[in-house]
């Protein structure tokens, strides 16, 4: 089983560079599934999302999900990067790349990590509002809790 690469950082990331690191020089990978999560403006009501995280535990929880995915499916490479700090609409928040010989493992692996990361990784989003009023903390969604259940 491969060891996933997990990074929590404030800097932006380069999806194609990360993909290249997983595929370069290899001829056994047939499938690359990638997910990128972007910051939305909610109809221009937001100027940014501020992401708070629990250093140490954030990495540990993502790593747990990623390792479980790599055990569950024949995954050849996995990279997960999650940002924290102030992120503006249109900017990238999270990246998951899973590579495999076949597409099912790559798709399942990437989606599994996203589903568990959403509810288990200690990150919290606070809204920065365009109208200057104090922003709320984003509420957790029931649908995210439900999404985890599909892997039972």
């Amino acid at each position, binding site marked *: 089983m491969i060891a996933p690469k997990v990074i929590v950082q404030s800097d932006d990331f380069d999806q194609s560079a990360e993909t290249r690191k997983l595929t370069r020089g290899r001829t056994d990978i047939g499938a690359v599934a990638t997910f990128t999560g972007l910051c939305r403006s909610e109809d221009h009501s937001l100027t940014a999302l501020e992401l708070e*995280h629990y250093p140490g535990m954030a990495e540990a929880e993502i790593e747990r999900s990623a390792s479980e995915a790599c055990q569950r499916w024949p995954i050849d490479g996995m990279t997960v990067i*999650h940002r924290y700090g102030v992120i503006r609409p249109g900017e990238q928040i*999270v990246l998951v790349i899973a590579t495999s010989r076949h597409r099912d493992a790559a798709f399942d692996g990437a989606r599994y990590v996203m589903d568990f990361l959403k509810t288990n990784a200690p990150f*919290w989003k606070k809204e920065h509002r365009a109208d200057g009023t104090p922003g709320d903390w984003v509420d957790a969604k029931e649908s995210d809790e439900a999404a985890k259940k599909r892997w039972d």
Partner: protein
Amino acid sequence: MTKNGAKVHYFSWIRERVGMGEETVNLPDSVETVSQMLQWMQGRNDQFAAALEFPDIIRVALDQQHVEHDQRLDSPREIALFPPMTGG
């Protein structure tokens, strides 16, 4: 007295309501479970009472591991209280 001197972290709106990100807390010996700890903290002052008004929704981690509220505390070095997560 093994529970004494645990570092407690607060995140998101819990951090805002209690007015600090972390502190070192000496828990009384009578506090044996996560649930009892939340109850005890609620009684500390008005800010904690407001932050932990609905204890059922508070998530707790002991030494960076998610735990249920009926979990025994034992002697964690690090305790964290936070709302449901919204990353990704």
